[in-house]
């Protein structure tokens, strides 16, 4: 087994509601039982270090915001992180100050230790935390390496792991093993400086003075005793919420905040072997006298996906196109529809299926930014009237049903069709396009149909050329009412040959 420990040194601080523009100069710290537990960079610059007394901190830097510790927030934060990390491995254990992953089986899939660690760090950063990572063959050792300061935090072999563990300095290592301070003081008093020194002490004496817990923890860390853990079980239904500390009213900030939810969704989906088809993001506005009803953003994917990057891109584009009625103080992501999706097999060559997936993803991306009505495909229709001979439909939706075969064309059709025919003037018996007299090049092609559906056309089409040598497709309206109603002599420009 190979364990990756993700240790969150500033968990009490990071688990609090997301600060979007959190008073950058002032800083925040979390206090518990009269002691500072964690402080952000600004607070540390003001002299508020973890371990300081609450009163001292208040005297030293009165401007620093002191927040009480919120254990519920911490639990749900760690669970959220565990869910997001489920894309890496199904074997996850929740530890008191972080998450443990069993990654032996994932190394090859993700391309080695280095890439896996990079990915884990990337996900953790997306969730809003800066972790320290430790890698070792036992869970306890990985946790220790991640939590204690040291030059090396990775060991693939048991022997390396034991050597690294033996060098860990004492008070920090015992603190990471959650031993009482009394034991650490005692062991230091009898001359132990590293974890290796402690392990070298006689077991019976150590058990008498430090209790069985210390011995068991050491055995677990060095791999001398089995260390069974409880696997983390993700919830059966996905629903993730996020409270924002400050009101957010621009898309950039909202997208940044929503990233954590999307990462959790991606982890949940990969754990369940599903791919999202329809998502809903609820944007909560302030309730009260001037409260606005919550806004909702529905995202439908042409090709179901569980790739966090793709989902995030879709969400970001949609958020940027949306106008908010009021500032947002909470986000909630819901999964409406998901489809089974059994990951893709590795292949030597890019195959058609992968290509098809990429096309769907591309169309979804384009539709999210440009608008689905601006990404179109064309289909033929069985109709002689040019304006009804094709259907343009949004590429994000499945093509409409077009019954019948299109008619065979004996005469060339122009590549450009004008959406509305342009009336042409007539001088000296010739149609004119602007200032250019047009010469007809072909005999009439009569299109006369549509009496059955109320859109009757009676037209004689000709190819015509002007002095600029562009070929035009023009027609003469044959219905007397239509001609008399318009100012032109019944000539219209309907297309251009390109």
């Amino acid at each position, binding site marked *: 087994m190979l364990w990756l420990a993700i240790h969150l040194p500033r968990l009490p601080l990071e688990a609090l509601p997301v600060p979007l523009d959190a008073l950058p100069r002032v800083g925040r710290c979390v206090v518990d039982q009269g002691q500072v537990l964690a402080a952000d960079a600004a607070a540390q610059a003001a002299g508020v270090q973890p371990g300081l007394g609450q009163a001292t901190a208040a005297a030293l830097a009165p401007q620093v915001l002191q927040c009480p510790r919120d254990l519920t927030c911490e639990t749900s934060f760690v669970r959220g992180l565990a869910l997001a990390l489920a894309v890496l491995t199904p074997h996850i254990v929740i530890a008191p100050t972080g998450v443990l992953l069993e990654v032996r089986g994932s190394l090859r899939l993700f391309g080695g230790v280095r890439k896996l660690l990079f990915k884990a760090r990337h996900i953790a950063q997306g969730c809003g935390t800066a972790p320290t990572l430790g890698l070792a063959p036992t869970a306890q050792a990985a946790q220790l390496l991640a939590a204690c300061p040291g030059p090396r935090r990775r060991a693939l072999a048991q022997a390396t792991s034991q050597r690294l563990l033996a060098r860990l300095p004492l008070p920090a290592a015992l603190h990471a093993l959650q031993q009482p301070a009394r034991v650490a003081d005692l062991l230091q008093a009898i001359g132990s400086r590293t974890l290796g020194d402690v392990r070298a002490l006689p077991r019976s004496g150590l058990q008498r003075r430090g209790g069985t817990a210390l011995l068991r923890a050491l055995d677990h860390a060095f791999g001398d005793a089995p260390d069974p853990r409880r696997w983390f079980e993700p919830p059966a239904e996905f629903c993730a919420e996020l409270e924002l500390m400050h009101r957010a009213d621009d898309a950039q900030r909202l997208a940044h905040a929503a990233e954590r939810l999307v990462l959790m969704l991606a982890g949940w989906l990969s754990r369940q072997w599903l791919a999202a088809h329809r998502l809903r993001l609820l944007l909560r506005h302030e309730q009260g006298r001037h409260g606005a009803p919550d806004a909702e953003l529905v995202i439908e994917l042409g090709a179901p996906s569980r790739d966090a990057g793709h989902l995030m891109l879709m969400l970001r584009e949609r958020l940027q196109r949306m106008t908010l009625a009021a500032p947002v103080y909470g986000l909630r992501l819901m999964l409406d529809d998901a489809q089974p999706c059994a990951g893709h097999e590795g292949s030597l060559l890019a195959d058609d299926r992968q290509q098809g997936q990429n*096309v769907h993803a*591309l169309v979804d991306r384009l539709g999210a930014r*440009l608008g689905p009505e601006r990404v179109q495909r064309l289909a033929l229709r069985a109709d002689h009237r040019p304006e009804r001979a094709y259907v343009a439909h949004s590429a994000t939706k499945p093509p409409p049903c077009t019954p019948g075969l299109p008619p065979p064309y*004996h005469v060339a*059709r*122009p*590549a450009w069709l004008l959406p509305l025919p342009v009336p042409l003037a007539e001088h000296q018996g010739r149609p004119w396009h602007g200032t250019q007299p047009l010469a007809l090049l072909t005999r009439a092609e009569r299109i006369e149909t*549509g009496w059955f559906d109320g859109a009757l056309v*009676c037209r004689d089409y000709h190819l015509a050329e002007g002095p600029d040598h562009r070929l035009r497709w023009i027609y003469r309206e044959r219905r007397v009412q239509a001609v008399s109603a318009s100012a032109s002599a019944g000539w219209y420009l309907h297309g251009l040959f390109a």
Partner: protein
Amino acid sequence: MHAAVAHEALPAPVRSALWFGHQLGAAEVPTVPSGFDALDAELPGGGWPLAGLTELLQQVEPGGGELALLAAALARAAAPGGQVVWIAPPHTPFAPALQALGVPLDRFLWLSPASPKDAAWAAEQVLRSGTCAWLQWWSPKTTPDMLRRLHLAALDHHCPLLVLRPGTAQQHASPAPLRLVCTPLPRRQLEVRILKRRGPALARAITLALPDPVPQRHGTTNPSPSPSPSKPLADADVVAGHPSAPLAA
């Protein structure tokens, strides 16, 4: 002689990127024949490049034969698969005509972005997706740095990018390795001048005979006076629909 020997001694990647001033350079990327022998003879590699940016400038408004010039190459490039994407065409592409030109309609994507910025973004997304076989972008306004960025993206992802611009763009610099300007001539001919290519400048213009949609033309240079538009019904070439009912309507 010495130069030729030195040229032979160069490593292959350098040799392919280097050409003598009086010769036509070899193409660095694969090409596809344009379907016009006179044009192929003057293009490096004997056809349109299948990766990177190519600029086609039009002296007249859209409808001067630019699609007929590209159609054969487009159909060949798209034959193995991949999407054919047109960004911001000047008018609605007419599906029956596209099919006749050889554009695969089931793989045809028509984007009409609201702004040039969106169009450039869309072009880059299409190129980077790696699913595109042919990208055509009608771009009246664009900047050299935008074009350079798209050119590099097109090279990286082996996709031909055809940018169609108005003839006034001749005066501006462009990162495109191949630039052509085309002017329609009478009787469905097209005059093509090559503004820039890997090789010596081409002073003369190439005249190409495009496929003519007009069935049979008379030998005169001036188009004959128009046939009478008001012909009896029996004379019309194609009669569609129901002949009797509409007259009463």
